[in-house]
C-alpha cells in the first residue's frame, strides 16, 4: 500500500481524433489554485509571496494563462497540459463546454489504465522522477489510518509553457522513425 499513480499526457493527446487535436491545439486555459488562498486564510498563515524560484512566480494571486496543449521542448512532442485540479477553465469555450471538456480529459485518464503507471512505495528513500510538462499524477490515500506518510519533493522550474504548431504527437513522431 501507499501507491502513487502517474499518467501520460502524450498518450492522452494521441487518444484524441485529429479534428479534436487541431481544435484543442488553438486553445488556452486559466490555471489557478484559489484553494491555497482559502487554506491559508482558514489556518491563519500567509502564502509565500516573494519570488518562488523564478522572478515571474511572485505574489499571492496563484493564476496563469497557458496553452491547453503543450509542446515538450526536450522530446518535441505535444501533450494535453490542461488537466487536473489546478485548471480552472478553457478560456475560449463557454463555461458549460469548458467544464465538460476538463471533466472529459480526467475521464480519459481514469478510464484508460494503459496510459497509467502505478508505483508502490516500499522503502524509505525510494525516489520517483517525472516530467510535469507531459505527465500527471495522483496520490492514493490507501494508507489512511495506518500511519503518517512523508516525502521530500524538489521541483525544478522549466520554461514558460508554449505550443509549437510544428510539433508532433508522440505516436506521429515515432511512426515517422519506423
Amino acid at each position: 500500500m501507499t501507491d502513487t499513480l502517474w499518467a501520460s499526457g502524450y498518450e492522452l493527446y494521441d487518444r484524441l481524433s485529429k479534428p479534436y487535436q487541431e481544435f484543442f491545439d488553438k486553445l488556452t486555459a486559466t490555471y489557478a489554485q484559489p484553494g491555497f488562498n482559502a487554506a491559508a486564510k482558514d489556518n491563519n498563515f500567509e502564502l509565500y509571496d516573494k519570488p518562488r524560484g523564478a522572478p515571474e512566480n511572485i505574489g499571492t494571486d496563484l493564476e496563469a494563462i497557458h496553452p491547453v496543449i503543450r509542446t515538450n521542448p526536450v522530446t518535441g512532442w505535444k501533450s494535453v497540459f490542461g488537466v487536473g485540479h489546478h485548471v480552472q477553465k478553457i478560456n475560449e469555450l463557454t463555461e458549460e463546454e469548458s467544464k465538460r471538456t476538463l471533466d472529459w480529459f480526467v475521464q480519459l485518464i481514469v478510464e484508460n489504465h494503459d496510459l497509467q503507471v502505478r508505483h508502490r512505495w516500499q522503502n524509505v528513500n525510494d525516489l520517483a522522477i517525472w516530467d510535469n510538462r507531459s505527465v500527471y499524477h495522483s496520490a492514493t490515500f490507501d494508507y489512511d489510518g495506518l500511519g503518517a506518510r512523508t516525502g521530500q519533493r524538489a521541483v525544478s522550474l522549466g520554461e514558460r509553457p508554449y505550443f509549437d504548431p510544428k510539433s508532433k504527437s508522440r505516436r506521429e513522431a515515432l511512426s515517422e522513425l519506423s
Partner: protein
Amino acid sequence: MVFFRKQDDLDNELQKELAQRLGELSGKPETSKLHIHPVSNSGRRLGGKDDEISVISSEQAKEIYKNRFLNFNKKQSAKGGWHSDITFEPIPSDYALLRLTELPETGGGK
C-alpha cells in the same frame, strides 16, 4: 517517469542538485531555479527547514486542507486527485523528484 528504489545515499541537498541539473542540462532558462511552494514551505508546522523542498506530509495535509482537497470520509471517487504540479505558476515545473522518508505501517514492504 523513472523510479529508483532505496536511494539511501541521497539527501535533500543532493536531490535538489539533481533536480536543478536535470533542468539546466535540458536547456531551461537561467532564471528558472527550484520552486518554493506557496503553502508547502518552511513556514508550516511539518514543512521542514528548506523552502526549496516541499515536504509532502499526510499529517500536514489533514491539518490544513481538511475537506478542501482531501476527503477521507467514505471516499467514492478519487479522480479529483489527478494533476500536474504547480501549473498555476507563470513558470511551472519541468522535473519533479519525490523521495519518501516516512512510510505508513502496512506490512507491504517490511
